[in-house]
């Protein structure tokens, strides 16, 4: 047997195996069954395949246990045999590998279900599923665990945590990225690397879905951030279906040409996935003349925080800007947010998240602590919501260690903990949790005795906390030191101590630093000036992060200005961008719009244009009170407004939901005005019948058409969906309709339209029949003799207007 596998200190590239599936099929495995069962029933076949890989140069072979979890085995009625199947299959591979002095990796695949917050399955349920399989592999004695072909970062996190609990050997997690460079659930390689390596993976990999060329590009983007070995198992190029067989575009020779490029990019473990064979591995082995592993230079003093879809790099190095932690999601002093959180709602919280992002926040601080709510439940709800709603990483701000722990577990990213201090009791609770979830954390230089009065006192607290981190095996680069700003009004020496703390942590300890700005100006007028000035000074002292309100325009401008002056904005690009963009004029907010002075008529027009339904009736009432005739309101204000909406829709400036919102606003106004119009003898004009034809159940598009026609003054009778031709005709005659508008969404139901047209023609009626719906075309309308076709609701209104201008020959049902 070979020595114990030590991934990090291994000086050579380790060759892995290629595809097992390709080989199993070649050797006669029938389709549709369980490969695990087939390998158990035919041990000689898997032995032969693995022996071929070893002969080709593979130093690690994978156990054929990819789908041997209880969810996958349930398809074959084998969910109760997870331990037995994994153990037996692992023993087969171990025997083959160890007999030749090589290693066997316990292979763990995905379960095919979604976990919270993306799905229904819980964290503990996932842990149980993966632990059961990994425990069996570990007890069989595998040399490492490879969790591979993962498409969802949350499932990968759970599998890794399970492996860490169930296995003593090294653990590698390998994700699969599609041609856009993302997992199916939208995570990029750097984000996955950061989350998994901080969670304690011993190696990070990319396998399947892409060929070596695509994978090489992905590796180049992540290798400078990898603290752990990188594993690569590309497909043999991209698959092509040719003469009834899937062929991979890359033969062994071409595949092997990438070996050296991967080595140069610092890859440590190299093998093949779909379409690769022992020949690919042999050529790869022979092509790699020098297998010495190249260690890539890792970027120093950089801390990465990740949401599931984005990674933010934090550093005091000159090339990166100061990152802004948006502070507004905190109920203190915010009655609106307090009321919402008490009511169990998160709308205001989400608005704060959105506004802060749009105004320059890079990270969101989440604090939901307040009396009258269960903080843990509210925090979990907020984290669940924000992990989907916002792509900014989260900073979890709570005094309660159990709240922080619950959030760290649920969040499919890497959080920043706000905060820990030198208080021994809190350190004992928080440090193990920080280590377990790989969180980054803010250190406050204070302890049980409070904030030290002088610089030396702060330095001692810091050193004590950092020593405790080391004892818990937490890398010190995960720490962010808080400069701890105190009110300048009460502590004249305070600002200098804060700046010295930042400078010391940044320049002497090489750590990132953070500052909650607003304390500095407490008790003084003109706080924004003091805050902004202090930010500029802290920036010069080496600040990495600021906790602030990004809606404060002055503060943000000073931040951008400082970055130019201390060389953290190359070519002053961001500064110029900020100074020239519209966004610099004022903070963007969705809730407090500055109203220009407009007339009542102008306001009605604007409400329809903007699709703002809530006030339209009140405004129209006000117009009527003012003595404006209903007819004038409709003809001179509302119809021009809805026509402007139609124009915007035509020009692709407005889109479907906006069109509908405006139409609904108009409709609400019309409901109020109709009785007045009747009094003024200005009731609506022509009547039309709308119907979805027999057999078809789609009618939302038709509803939009009806809405817009009513907006434009037509009376509309909507017969609903699946209406037969006789009913349509009878209703058209009864209501003396001028036109019939028919809708169909399927090719099978479209044919019903012809029946309606024929009936109208047979009776010699002068009713216009017009068509619409996804599958209908002008050509089809012409073929069946309809009077017109409209591709959308706006065009339908134009069509009706045009058609009704000229009287159609035939009997007028009116």
């Amino acid at each position, binding site marked *: 047997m070979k020595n114990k596998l030590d991934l990090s200190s291994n000086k050579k590239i380790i060759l892995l195996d290629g*595809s097992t*599936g390709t*080989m*199993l*099929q*070649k050797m006669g495995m029938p*389709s*549709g069954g369980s*490969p695990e069962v087939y390998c158990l029933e035919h041990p000689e076949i898997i032995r032969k395949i693995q022996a071929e890989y070893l002969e080709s140069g593979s130093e690690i072979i994978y156990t054929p246990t*990819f789908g041997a979890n209880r969810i996958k085995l349930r*398809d074959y009625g084998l969910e109760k045999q997870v331990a037995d199947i994994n153990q037996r299959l692992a023993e087969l591979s171990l025997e083959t590998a160890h007999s030749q002095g090589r290693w066997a990796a316990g292979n763990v695949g*995905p379960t095919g*279900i*979604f976990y919270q917050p*993306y*799905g229904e399955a819980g964290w503990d349920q996932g842990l149980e599923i993966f632990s059961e399989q990994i425990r069996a592999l570990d007890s069989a004695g595998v040399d490492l665990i490879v969790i591979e*072909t993962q498409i969802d970062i949350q499932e990968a996190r759970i599998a890794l945590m399970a492996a860490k609990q169930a296995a003593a050997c090294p653990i590698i997690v390998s994700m699969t990225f599609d041609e856009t460079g993302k997992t*199916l*659930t*939208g995570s990029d390689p750097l984000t996955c690397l950061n989350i998994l390596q901080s969670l304690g993976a011993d190696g990070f990999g990319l396998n*399947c879905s892409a060929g070596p060329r695509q994978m090489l590009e992905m590796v180049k983007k992540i290798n400078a951030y990898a603290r752990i070995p990188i594993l690569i198992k590309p497909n043999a190029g991209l698959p092509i*279906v*040719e*003469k*009834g067989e*899937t*062929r*991979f*575009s890359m033969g*062994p020779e071409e595949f092997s040409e990438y070996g050296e490029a991967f080595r140069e990019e610092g890859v440590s473990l190299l093998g093949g*996935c*779909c379409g*690769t064979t022992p020949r*690919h591995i042999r050529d790869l082995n022979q092509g790699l003349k020098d297998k010495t592993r190249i260690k890539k230079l890792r970027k120093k003093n950089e801390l990465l925080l990740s949401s599931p879809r984005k990674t933010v790099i934090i550093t005091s190095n000159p090339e990166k800007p100061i990152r802004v932690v948006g502070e507004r999601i905190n109920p203190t002093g915010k009655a609106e947010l307090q009321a919402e959180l008490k009511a169990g709602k998160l*709308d205001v919280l989400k608005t704060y998240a*959105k506004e802060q992002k*749009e105004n320059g926040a890079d990270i969101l601080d989440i604090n939901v602590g307040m009396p009258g709510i269960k903080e843990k439940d509210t925090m979990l709800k907020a984290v669940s919501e924000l992990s*989907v*709603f916002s792509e900014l990483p989260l900073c979890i701000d709570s005094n309660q260690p159990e709240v922080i722990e619950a959030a760290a577990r649920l969040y499919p990213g890497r959080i920043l903990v706000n905060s820990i201090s030198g208080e021994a009791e809190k350190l004992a609770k928080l440090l193990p949790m920080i280590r377990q979830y790989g969180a980054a954390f803010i250190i406050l230089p204070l302890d049980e005795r409070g904030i030290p009065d002088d610089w030396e006192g702060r330095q001692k607290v810091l050193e004590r906390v950092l020593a405790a981190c080391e004892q818990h095996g937490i890398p010190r680069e995960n720490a962010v030191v808080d400069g701890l700003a105190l009110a300048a009004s009460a502590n004249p020496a305070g600002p200098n101590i804060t700046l010295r703390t930042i400078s010391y942590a940044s320049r002497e300890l090489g750590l990132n630093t953070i500052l909650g700005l607003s304390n500095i100006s407490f008790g003084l007028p003109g706080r924004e000036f003091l805050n902004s000035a202090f930010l500029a000074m802290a920036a010069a002292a080496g600040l990495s992060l600021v906790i602030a309100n990004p809606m404060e325009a002055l503060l943000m401008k000073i931040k951008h200005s400082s970055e130019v002056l201390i060389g953290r904005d190359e070519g002053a690009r961001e500064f110029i961008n900020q100074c020239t*963009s*519209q*966004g610099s004029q004022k903070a*963007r907010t969705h809730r407090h719009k500055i109203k220009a002075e407009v007339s009542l008529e102008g306001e009605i027009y604007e409400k329809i244009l903007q*699709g703002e339904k809530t006030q339209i009736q009140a405004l129209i009432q006000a117009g009527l009170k003012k003595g404006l005739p209903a007819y004038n309101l409709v003809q001179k204000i509302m119809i021009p407004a809805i026509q402007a909406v139609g124009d915007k829709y035509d020009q692709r400036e407005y*889109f*479907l939901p*906006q069109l*509908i919102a405006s139409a*609904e606003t108009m*409709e609400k106004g019309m409901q109020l005005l109709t009785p007045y119009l009747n009094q003024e003898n200005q009731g609506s004009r022509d009547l039309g019948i709308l119907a979805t034809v027999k*057999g*078809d*159940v*789609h009618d*939302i598009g038709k*509803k*939009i058409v009806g809405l817009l026609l009513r907006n434009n003054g037509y009376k509309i009778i909507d017969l609903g969906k699946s209406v037969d031709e006789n009913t349509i005709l009878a209703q058209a005659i009864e209501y003396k309709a001028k036109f019939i508008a028919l809708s169909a969404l*399927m090719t*099978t*139901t479209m044919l019903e339209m012809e029946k309606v047209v024929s009936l109208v023609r047979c009776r010699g009626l002068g009713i216009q029949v017009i068509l619409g719906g996804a599958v209908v075309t002008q050509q089809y309308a012409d073929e069946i003799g309809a009077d017109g076709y409209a591709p959308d609701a706006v065009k339908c209104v134009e069509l009706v207007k045009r058609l009704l201008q000229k009287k159609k020959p035939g009997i007028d049902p009116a």
Partner: protein
Amino acid sequence: MKALTIKTLVFSEVPIIRVFHRLNYRKNPDFIKGKNSDEGGELKAKVWARYESMITQMVKETRVRTFYQEKSIEIKKHEVIINEYGFTGRLVQARCVGAESVFILGASVLPGDFIQIQKLQDEGDIEKAVVLDAVLSEKVEFALDFIEKEVTIELNRTGRYIGRRFSCGYGDFSLNYQQFFYEILEFEKYGIKINDKNILFPEKTVTALLPVFPAGESK
């Protein structure tokens, strides 16, 4: 052959951009470009602000049921036979020639969630109904993408690979074949209905065939 697998998926990872696309926003390249590049722009901010929260909530609160099963396939000169059903047409021939089996895939929004579209219309909130309609359409498509990925991973480890999936109504693959999917995937048991025009209810139900090919040698 893989027996019928049925799963109820609750997931909230449908990229919002896909829903915006479905709502015709794709027709304004500046909008999409602005969004993707994280740049500002009044249109982006206004439209995004109005609908993002609505879409996110809808994605989170709705559920999709997925169905899939593998069946063997026989290719004849003028017909493709799957489970004793004969399929004709150029598309099915072209996509399945050489396939050794097919996966029959389906995804459907749970009826209770689908009914909300009608409810919103009845309440007069067509704007929201249209957005929910788009969300559910994207959700079933995403669910189909997900099970295709899952099936792909499963197949790859047995040395088999997938072709391109296709559905009734594509090219000359007739909508009448919907009946086949309805029966094979046992839709009836799950409250899904089909009418005499082969329209499935809930309408947010999608089905597809995914041909499976053996591996050849890499070039």
